[in-house]
């Protein structure tokens, strides 16, 4: 769902860029206050890791393939939606400028969809479901699915506003495709969280009370 250059008129792109910049500034402030600004290298290296993670081709039903976006994953593990905004911004800059995936004028809208919408839906979906009593892996999975699905709907709406793709067919096409891809994103994210909890429980310190002691009701 990387919207390329020329698919959104310049003035609309500018608006999305401004909104994205506000969130990037908020993410930098989060990094300063919560992480201490010095710790930014850690996030930057993790962003490189997320970039590599996106390269894994995952089998989706009926022979199609998809890949992880990873925004929800980053937000859940680092405990803030701004982590996703920060990491996806870095990833999208590299994708846009080095690989030509996405664009320059549309980078703002892409950061908005995948970083901001994906990150916030992923993080608050996760915390919401968890506080409603669901187990953490299921919460993470559903939240990651929602992040992927909602971000794709946003992209469809933005292209409809731009006049480059009609609203209803766009919502149906983008929605169904990403609802399917999102299932993989959800399953894999849930399984990664499980893997992280068993191998580095301190990473998710707030969420888990020692799974080995049987604290998690699975």
């Amino acid at each position, binding site marked *: 769902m990387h919207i390329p*250059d020329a698919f959104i008129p310049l003035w609309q792109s500018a608006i999305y860029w401004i909104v994205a910049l506000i969130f990037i500034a908020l993410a930098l402030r989060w990094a300063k206050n919560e992480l201490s600004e010095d710790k930014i290298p850690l996030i*930057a290296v993790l962003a490189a*890791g997320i970039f590599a993670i996106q390269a*894994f081709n995952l089998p989706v039903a009926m022979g199609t393939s998809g890949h992880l976006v990873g925004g929800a994953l980053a937000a859940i593990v680092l405990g803030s939606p701004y982590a996703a905004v*920060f990491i996806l911004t870095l990833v999208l800059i590299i994708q846009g400028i080095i690989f030509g995936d996405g664009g320059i004028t549309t980078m703002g809208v892409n950061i908005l969809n995948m970083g901001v919408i994906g990150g916030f839906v992923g993080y608050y979906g996760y915390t919401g479901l968890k506080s409603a009593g669901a187990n953490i892996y299921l919460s993470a999975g559903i939240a990651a699915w929602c992040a992927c699905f909602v971000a794709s709907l946003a992209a469809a709406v933005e292209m409809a506003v731009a006049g480059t793709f009609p609203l209803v*067919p766009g919502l149906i096409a983008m929605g169904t495709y990403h609802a399917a891809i999102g299932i993989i994103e959800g399953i894999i994210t849930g399984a990664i969280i499980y893997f992280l909890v068993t191998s580095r429980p301190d990473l998710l310190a707030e969420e888990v009370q020692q799974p080995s002691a049987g604290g998690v009701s699975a």
Partner: protein
Amino acid sequence: MIEHLGTIEQDAHRDSPVHRLDARVKIVIAFAAIIAMVAVPYSTLVIPLFAGYLLVYAVWWGLSRLPLSTLLWRYLLTLPFGLFIIIFQIFFENPYYDTFTPLFALPLGITVYVQSVEFASILAMKFTACIIWIILLSSTTPMEELLKGGRRLGLPSVMALSLGMMIRYLFVFADMFANINRALALRHFAAFDRALPYRYRLTTLAYAIGSLFLRSYEQGERTYICMQCRGYGKRTYEALPKRPVPSRQLGVVAVMLAIFVALPVMLYIAPF
């Protein structure tokens, strides 16, 4: 995508008049080309403009001494999502037109309109005209130079530092990604092998991705500690030596900017 990183970077480290230009010059030219093309409204004006862009671009690509196959290969890599949108255009009535003439009708009541085909072509041209400049930029400028150029053009130092760290480790993780895939293949694991149970494939992939996540996180922790040991602080990337752009290169920028403004204006005043 990361698997092509090495190839792109190798191209960027070659030598040619375009490679030798200051990174700032190329960044400004590429961004100006893209913004100018995006700013042109969706109209038939795009068609001659696209031809003009291709002519100008041919000179640049020729000067870069990179093979044409590189351009085509990199163009194909960026296509999927854009192509999907462009192809499906032809089945819809577009808000940029008032009247629609059916070109031909397909079963199930689907009609292809002349105007929609026209719009799809215009979109494809605009898309292509933008993407080729990104390809030129990244195929002739090493990432480190791009970053320094960006920093000199006023990219905030926090972003420059983060991107710099990320770029260095991208290559580490590209190798790691290749290693993991090789290790999986050695054990006869294939993500798309129907003979393996779906659940098993997903679990294996999830754990492989999870371990990559963990390794990058731990690499981040180690790097952070090592940097602190060497006196890293918030203002590390501030000390970039000043380097003025040579006046001849400034001339190149001026000429290119003039072309990107003049082309659409001329075509608007005197259409072909």
